[in-house]
């Protein structure tokens, strides 16, 4: 499966670059850093039915860092929720693909996000609903590292531990960069692992571009009972496109058509 995941993630990255170039705006850096995590979730772990996006027993995914919407859209399209051609409509009037995820317009989006800090609370609510109803689904939540500066994240971290939400599996896409610069320059977020442990979470630290490590972390999280699990993923912002990698300027700027062509060639290894 890892080989398949590699090619799926490669295809997702191509779509991310191409849809952003077509849109002329958006967030490549954080989409590319999150790609492997989202690929692994949607093509390996999540219990889904693209024919029935509202299936009550499905696993849920909350993209708390909603600006990585292109990565989610690429996964949903490749998973069959809507035609791949739709990706070209990103951020355009009349398209179902909004700049940030919108559950009422895009099939397969479990929660509307975009305002940082709110996703983990929502994931907790989904997990509480599953508990009330005796359902076994898992709720995956992907946060940014800069997002951890939002106070609500820590309120939600307290709640998930207080209610023992072991069906919440959260990820931090720790690429180290945010709009104004490096996390450490803007507002220090580390040590992420120690902070969440102190809040009562089980914490695993992995390479967020290594599918084996992502798989192992999810298996570990599912085996952990009585507390939520956080997977801190060390990632590279702009991963896969050398001129974007670790460049803060690629947080929220779309590639030109020429840059997109070069990026796609590099991703495809041409």
């Amino acid at each position, binding site marked *: 499966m890892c080989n398949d995941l590699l090619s799926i993630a490669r295809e997702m990255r191509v779509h991310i670059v191409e849809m952003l170039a077509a849109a002329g705006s958006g967030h490549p850096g954080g989409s590319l850093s999150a790609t492997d995590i989202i690929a692994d979730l949607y093509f390996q772990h999540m219990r889904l039915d693209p024919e029935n996006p509202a299936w009550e027993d499905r696993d849920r995914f909350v993209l708390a860092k909603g600006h990585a919407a292109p990565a989610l859209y690429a996964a949903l399209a490749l998973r069959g929720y809507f035609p791949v051609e739709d990706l070209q409509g990103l951020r355009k009037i009349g398209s179902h693909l909004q700049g940030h995820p919108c559950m*009422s317009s895009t099939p397969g989006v479990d929660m509307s996000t975009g305002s940082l800090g709110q996703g983990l609370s929502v994931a907790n609510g989904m997990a509480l*609903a599953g508990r009330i109803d005796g359902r076994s689904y898992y709720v995956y939540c992907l946060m940014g590292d800069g997002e951890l500066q939002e106070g609500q994240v820590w309120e939600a971290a307290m709640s998930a531990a207080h209610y023992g939400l072991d069906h919440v599996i959260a990820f931090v896409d720790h690429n180290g960069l945010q709009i104004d610069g490096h996390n450490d320059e803007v507002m220090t977020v580390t040590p992420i692992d120690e902070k969440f442990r102190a809040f009562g979470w089980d914490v695993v630290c992995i390479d967020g571009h290594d599918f084996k490590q992502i798989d192992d972390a999810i298996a570990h999280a599912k085996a952990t009972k009585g507390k939520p699990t956080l997977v801190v993923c060390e990632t590279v912002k702009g991963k896969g496109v050398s001129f974007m990698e670790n460049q803060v300027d690629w947080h929220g700027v779309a590639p030109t058509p020429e840059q997109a062509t070069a990026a796609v060639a590099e991703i495809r290894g041409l």
Partner: protein
Amino acid sequence: MNSATREAYGAALRDLGRVNPNIVALDADLAGSTKSAMFGKEHPDRFFDMGISEADMIGTAAGLATCGKIPFASSFSVFVTGRAFEQIRNSVCNANVNVKVVGSHAGPSCGEDGSSHQAVEDIAIMRALPHMTVVVPADDVEAYAATVALADHTGPAYLRVARLASPTIHEEEGYKFVLGKGEVLREGTDITVVACGMMVPRALHAAELLADEGISAEVINMATVKPIDADLLVECAKKTGKIITIEEGSMVGGLGTAVAEVLSERCPVPVRRIGLPDVFGISGPGDQLLDYYRLNAGHIIEVAHELLA
């Protein structure tokens, strides 16, 4: 009878929980005050105290709603609508999920706790949100019925309830609350008084006193502030041609503003608003504060005289 609207809210929530397993409740460490504890006591598996974290409470409620639950998230009005405003905006209204936000201790009738605890802006800011329904019940009978109606209504809603006990004006027997419809409580031909919440009994009292002077005042209970019953307002404006609004909150953006928005476009007639004149409250007994701010029959009568002069 004659109890606070928050008491009726708690009772309705508890009773809803008996018949609808999808009803869930959340509070932010004020369950005893908002009366959501009445639900929590009877349905502990569906009640979540989130601690003093309104933002997280609203987000959690949104997540519950995406899975088919009908969450009622309560706290003091000022905290649940103010502290968690952006969560209500994005995770509830923009996501368009079925969360009921309940704010108690609204307005100066909240009393001694003072300005930090008396929401004056909640109606305005909740009304400004697309997809949001805003309900301010006048008494315990209406608060109970409105809570039931909001559980039946799919979509975001804000229910404003009061700390202070107030007189019951509705007959419990046969009462039916209709979301989005204003209620003609008293017929009149000279002037129309549009009120919501605890101001409704005061408007009725003013109408009685005006009748003694030979002035026929119509009284409208506009419990659903949004979507407002525009057709009824136009009908009133055409009939009496003079409108007074009264609300227990800021005049900026509240019921009076909503009435003026409708009438200025569809039937321009003089509209005089009574409410807090762009100020925060002060400490004091709640009932005395209502008179201190002239949220009373005397003020309505005074304005009626000015309009009829």
